Structures are given as C-alpha cells and as structure tokens.
C-alpha cells in the first residue's frame, strides 16, 4: 500500500488533495464501443495488448492488467473507489480491460464508453507534470495504433461532450472553512463564467461530506490543453489562498476544539458510518494542515478518506462485511492509523 500515489507528499496538499487528468481517445480502425461487434472488440483488446510493449518503460513502473469480466463484486467495488475503473465500464455487459500502474496513479481502460480512457492522478497540486507524462503515453499509443482525429474537431469521442482535446483536468480540494463561508456560492457561480465547474466531491444523500470539492474544465474544445489547465490552476490557487486565510483568521481555541474533538471521537469510537468518519477526517486534515496534529510516518489523511469506503475496507481486512460490520471495521481501521498521528 505504501507506494500508492495518495500516500506520497504533495505540493500544497494542505488544501489541494488531488490533481488528475483524463484523456479519452478512439482508434480510427474500429467503430466506437457502442457500435462495435464482439469480434471487433476482441480484436481491439488484443491489438492494444500486443502493440504497446513500451508502456511500462514510459511510465517507469510495472503495469497490471485486469479483465473486468474476471473480477468479483468486492474487487469491482474497491477498484471503483480507488478510481481505477469507472462505474459505467463496470456496469456495461461488454468486456473491457484495465491497465493499472503499480502506484495506481495511472490507469488505462480499453473498451469503456470510448476505446481508451487514460487517467493519471497525483497527490497535491501539479497538473503540468501529469499532462506531460500522459501526453507522452498518448502520443506513443497514437504512433502505434492511430487515433480517430479530424483537423476540424480534434480527437473524436463517442460523446460530443468530450470532443476536441478529449481532456478533463481535475483538482480535488479540501475547503472546509471556505465552503462554510457566505460568499462560497458566489465564488462557485463566478467560476463557471471561466468554464470551471466546482461541485461536492463526495455526497451522501443530500449532504455534502468531508469538505472536499472537485474542480474541472467544462469544455474540451476550442482551447489548448495548457490553457484549460492554466485557468483551472488559477482558480485553484485563488481558492487555496482564501481557504488558508480563513484558517489563519479562525480563533485558535475554536480551531483546536474542532480538530481535537474529531480526533477524540475517532480515537475512541467503536463504530462509525461513512459520512460521520469522513466529517471527522476532514477536521483531522484541517488539524494536520494547521500544525495542531502531525504524522509520525509518511501518510496522508486523503488516503484514510479513501480507505474508509466500503469496498476498500473489505479489501483491506480481506473479508466480506455488511453495513454493521463495516461500521466496526471502519473505526478499527482508523484506530490503526491514528497511532501515527500525534498532537503537536
């Protein structure tokens, strides 16, 4: 687990939790996934598997191959929670193959809604290096198996929502205080004028949880990849500044009370449901970012936030669990990690 991407220290990760880029591509040779026959699908999966021997070399790490129709339910759930496979691909009845790097930062889904879905993530802020690497992978594949591309509209995707660059860039940001402030709605509306969408990263029922927000570019066409990323980064930098300012302004007593109250609950609770645990982890993250809490080994609160999802807990403890059992496992899991967190 220790070499996974969300475990690493990230740039500005007191606020920015994740940088992520997704590219959608289709091959010129075959009909798009919704229209292709079983034979074509098999041929495509085989071709991709055979013609990209340098993939591991470019990524600089081993790549694991996963066949979606060979996965059991628990595996599907945990892979989805770790964002290695998207829900749509798992729910389709057709065969797909996912290639995932050892650190899980890179994944390539072959045979989802588009022929290829390339995904690369990093903890903290840093879209630039991510794009550079992903673009290298992209060009390598294109040179081996040409993509469907037109001079006019660019990379041709199944849905016109993704045509052009086929790129969506994301930041997942931790904005516990800013999201409670009065002008948050205004900020959100303002952003959309620049083509940046912001929404709650995790929702449980009608409630937003964990103070996590995801930012991404709405359009995929008419702008260069770099410009799309620059706008997103500008917005993220501004939000980071505002969130930090609020953290500094918050009276020490209130901040400490909020953080340590959650710390206490996580230390002593015997069972925790997901929204509650997530809320307390959000306060712990606030505590680590403001120096109230510190780690005694390299880890991140974000990895714990991922860790408490149902599928990931079952994967971690190597057992099946119903809701009640999950609540107990969740508190047990957090206690194990809380040993590495101390009051500064």
């Amino acid at each position, binding site marked *: 687990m220790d070499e996974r991407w969300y475990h690493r220290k990230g740039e500005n990760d007191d606020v920015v939790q994740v940088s992520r880029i997704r590219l959608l591509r289709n091959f010129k040779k075959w*009909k798009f996934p919704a*229209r292709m026959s079983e034979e074509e699908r098999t041929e495509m999966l085989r071709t991709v598997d055979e013609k990209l021997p340098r993939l591991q070399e470019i990524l600089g790490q081993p790549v694991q191959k996963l066949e979606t129709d060979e996965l059991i339910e628990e595996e599907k759930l945990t892979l989805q929670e770790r964002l290695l496979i998207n829900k749509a691909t798992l729910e389709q009845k057709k065969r797909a193959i996912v290639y995932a790097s050892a650190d899980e930062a890179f994944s390539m889904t072959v045979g989802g809604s588009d022929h290829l879905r390339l995904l690369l993530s990093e903890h903290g802020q840093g879209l630039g290096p991510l794009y550079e690497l992903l673009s290298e992978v992209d060009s390598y594949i294109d040179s081996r198996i040409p993509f*469907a591309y037109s001079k006019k509209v660019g990379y041709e995707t199944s849905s016109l929502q993704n045509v052009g660059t086929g790129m969506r860039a994301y930041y997942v940001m931790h904005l516990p205080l800013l999201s409670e402030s009065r002008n948050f709605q205004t900020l959100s509306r303002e952003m959309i004028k620049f083509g940046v969408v912001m929404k709650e990263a995790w929702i449980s029922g009608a409630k937003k949880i964990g103070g996590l927000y995801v930012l991404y570019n709405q359009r995929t066409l*008419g702008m260069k990849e770099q410009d799309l990323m620059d706008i997103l980064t500008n917005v993220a930098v501004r939000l980071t500044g505002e969130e930090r300012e609020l953290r500094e302004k918050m009276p020490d007593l209130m901040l400490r009370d909020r953080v340590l109250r959650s710390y206490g609950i996580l230390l002593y609770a015997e069972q925790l449901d997901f929204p509650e645990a997530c809320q307390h982890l959000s306060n712990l993250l606030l505590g680590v970012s403001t120096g109230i809490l510190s780690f005694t080994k390299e880890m991140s609160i974000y990895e714990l936030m991922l860790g408490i999802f149902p599928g990931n807990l079952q994967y971690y403890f190597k057992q099946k669990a119903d809701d009640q059992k999950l609540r107990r496992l969740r508190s047990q899991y957090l206690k194990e990690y809380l040993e590495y967190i101390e009051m500064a």
Partner: protein
Amino acid sequence: MLCEICHEKEATVRITRIHHGNSESHNLCQDCAKQYGAEDPEAQDLSKAIFKLLAGALMKHLGPQNQNSEENERAKKLACPNCGKTFGEVLEDGLMGCTDCYETFEPQILPMIMRIQGADTHTGKKAVKARRKKTEQKNVEDQTLSKKEELSLLEDRMKIAVSEENYEEAARLRDEIRRLTGELHG
C-alpha cells in the same frame, strides 16, 4: 418542478452549464443527481441525459415551423456508410458511432458542438499523423496560395450556411471543400 431526467421525482438539484458564455441550468432530482455525485464527475449517463435535452431543444428549434423541416427529416435519415448509424439515432442517444460519423454528419453536428462546447474548432494537441502531414505540406505551400484562399472562403460560406441551419447548402459546400482539399494535397 419535476426532474428533467426521470420526470418522476421532485427536482432538488440544479446543474449549470455554459453555452456561448450564457449559463443554462438543468433541474434534477436527488436520485438522478446522486448517481453522478462521486468524485469521478465524468457522468457519462448525465452527459447523455443533458445531451438529449440539448438535442431535443435543437430539434424543436428546427421543428415544423421551420421551412426546412423536410430537409431536417431527411437529415435524420442520413446514415453513416461505415457503421450504419443514422443522424436520428445520434440525436436519440447523443453518441457518435465511429470516426466516419464525424465526417458524414459534419454539417449537422457542428452547430451542436458549438452549443455544447461554445466552439467548434480544435486548437489543442494534434494527432501524430496530422503533425506529420503538416511538415510534408510546407514544401508545396507557395504555389497553392490562391487555392488555399479559395478554400478558406468556402469554409467561411459553409460556416454561414450551418449557422443558418441550411444543411443542404452546407453539405454541398463541404463536398466542394473536400474536392479542393483533395486537389491541394495532390
């Protein structure tokens, strides 16, 4: 207000999109919106639903009151020679069937792309093959200037035809452009 996707439950979530700098909102129920609330906001299904709304609005706009409605009906029956998908089907599910669909339905989809993306011309990374072509082209550039000018003129006219939803004219111009492009590339 009812959810715009399921038309069953009360809409409590508002999703806003931008077109031409104007925002456009869709109201969804908690259940429909929740499915797409995960950190992975790709929301392929939601895209599809929204596309349907857009396509619906577009077709209504092109509807019977429009004098070209016969042509629109004809456009709907237009089929891709490679995968067999008709433009009517594209309007239904919002999905292109293959690379040839983009070519076949170009006059019809460009205004849709404009609506969805606020632009219809790619300016980002070029595919490997397109990059190669460009360097080869450079050598013959000088003598083909006048043809190039003619081409850009035709392209402008096609854009106008598309914006006026005159697809027949646009298709004719597209063929003309293609012929000329063919000549240019020898």
